[in-house]
């Protein structure tokens, strides 16, 4: 089949948009976090980009989207060989009927794997050893993300047999990451001082900018999931915008009624909640229902983020309250609002049914529930087990002293900001003082510290 330049340009750019979401997430999470853990927070996202990209190309894509001969095995896992190591044998292969090179589809899906892993980090701020994070990311990606992606989108049992719908990742991405975040957070325990001390966002403009970049990139995430450019892509795009806008309003309304003041943190969080909730449904529902889903998700998540205080687990940046809850809202919403008016593939290609409000009865609602609950349990369990293993291996929680002093310094040897007055000696009057007058720099560019101690 010929390459369709329009479709391919669309998916190439959608892939770039989804890649941008992870730095956006790093900013969103980092801004919500305390100053002393800012860099570690961002580092968890950036390390996901580095690590997961390579793993995806090596074995993730073939296991998730390749297909092995056996129907039985295919329910659970893709092929070990077909796309192994992103070889060159399939350089010019086109993905299905899309007119898009398989390479591009591989890259698009790579970005999904990256951000799903990064999403989990929001629950673990300020206290998880960076080495532990890297090991966890590797393990969870391999044991959870890859198979779940196959189950939902790669011809596995949830999509192909159960016929549960997930347009862009409500189950495979958000419920999946949210459940894992809860599993790890429970094993990891609370930050010192939580919840007695208020750990307010250290940089709210970054939170809003991060939300803005996420929103922008999410068009690629949602509308891009149609792969080709057609009328469903258009609907998915419109729904993404409407649900997100409505959720922004929903969250702010709850704040206005409850606290008397809508906040920018709330508006940003509401937008993310809406993006999450519409993700699984964006290609299956009509615009107004999408707005309805958004406003419900915004309000629901605004209330859900309070749960951790009641139940006493420290989900630092509300991965559960926003992504897990929002993902569920969206996944179930399909059971109510899915309609062939916007996407005939629901009943044709995908073998699913329309939603309860469109004469499809409760069938689809049931399927959505089974699909989502299965991923919830699987991801939660494996994540918790991985956490316990890391704990046993002592590469899990940082020392109390490191946590109080700040994980940025302890695990990365950096601090986020140095606003020493311009009149100062630059870098930092204090840092400079720290260096000492007689400071030497030896061959490989290291400041000679011993000498300082001596001097």
């Amino acid at each position, binding site marked *: 089949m010929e390459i369709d330049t329009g479709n391919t340009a669309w998916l190439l750019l959608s892939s770039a948009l989804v890649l941008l979401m992870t730095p956006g997430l790093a900013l969103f999470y980092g801004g919500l976090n305390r100053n002393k853990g800012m860099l570690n927070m961002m580092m968890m996202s950036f390390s996901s980009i580095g690590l997961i990209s390579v793993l995806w190309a090596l074995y993730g894509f073939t296991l998730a989207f390749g297909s092995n001969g056996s129907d039985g095995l295919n329910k659970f896992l893709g092929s070990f060989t077909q796309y192994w190591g992103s070889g060159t044998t399939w350089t010019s292969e086109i993905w299905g009927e899309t007119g898009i090179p398989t390479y591009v589809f591989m890259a698009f899906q790579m970005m999904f794997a990256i951000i799903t892993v990064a999403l989990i980090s929001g629950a673990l701020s300020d206290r998880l050893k960076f080495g532990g994070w890297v090991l966890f990311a590797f393990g969870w990606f391999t044991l959870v993300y890859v198979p779940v992606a196959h189950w939902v989108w790669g011809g596995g049992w949830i999509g192909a047999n159960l016929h549960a719908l997930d347009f862009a990742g409500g189950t495979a991405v958000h419920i999946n990451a949210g459940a894992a975040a809860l599993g790890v957070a429970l094993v990891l325990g609370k930050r010192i001082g939580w*919840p007695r001390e*208020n750990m*307010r*966002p250290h940089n709210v403009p970054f939170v809003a900018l991060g939300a803005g970049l996420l929103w922008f990139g999410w068009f690629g995430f949602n509308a891009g999931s149609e792969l080709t450019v057609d009328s469903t892509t258009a609907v998915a795009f419109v729904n993404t915008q409407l649900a997100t806008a409505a959720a922004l309003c929903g969250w702010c309304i709850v*704040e206005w009624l*409850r*606290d008397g*003041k809508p*906040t920018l*943190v*709330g508006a940003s*969080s509401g937008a993310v909640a809406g993006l999450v909730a519409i993700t699984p449904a964006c290609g299956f529902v009509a615009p107004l229902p999408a707005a309805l889903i958004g406003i419900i998700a915004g309000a629901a998540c*605004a*209330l859900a*983020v*309070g749960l951790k*205080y009641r139940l006493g687990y420290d989900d630092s940046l*509300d991965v559960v*309250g926003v992504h897990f809850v929002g993902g569920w809202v969206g996944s179930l919403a399909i059971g109510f609002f899915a309609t062939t008016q916007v996407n005939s593939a629901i009943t044709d290609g995908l073998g699913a049914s329309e939603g309860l409000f469109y004469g499809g009865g409760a069938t689809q609602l049931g399927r959505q529930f089974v699909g989502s609950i299965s991923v919830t349990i699987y991801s939660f369990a494996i994540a918790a087990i991985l956490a316990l293993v890391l704990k046993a291996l002592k590469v899990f929680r940082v020392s109390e002293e490191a946590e109080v002093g700040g994980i940025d310094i302890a695990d990365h040897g950096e601090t986020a900001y140095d606003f020493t007055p311009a009149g100062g000696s630059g870098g930092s009057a204090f840092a400079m003082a720290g260096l000492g007058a007689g400071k030497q720099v030896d061959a490989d560019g290291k400041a000679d510290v011993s000498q300082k101690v001596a001097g």
Partner: protein
Amino acid sequence: MKLVTAVIKPYQLDAVKEALHALGVTGLTVSEVQGYGRQKGHTEVYRGAEYTVEFLPKIKVEVVTDEIDVDKIVDAVVTSARTGKIGDGKVWVTAVEEVVRVRTGERGLDAL
């Protein structure tokens, strides 16, 4: 010599500086501080978690001066910093035994 220390509302700094300038005070040192006192703090809310900030931003002004000017200076600061609302702050005076101007090494009043 004396050191006059004033903790005032940030917004009043301009008035205080002008008042001291008018008195012929040639120099002063200010810094950002946080004050706790009778004045109530405000409430902030993040994702539904609400709390009071009891420490409020204030500006600390320090002036080293000649004994004889102390009262004038204290009065000038008090009047110029006053808004009449709780939280206007405090001014206190301590004794200074010696002052040196770094540039010249001059001591005592010459250093000011």
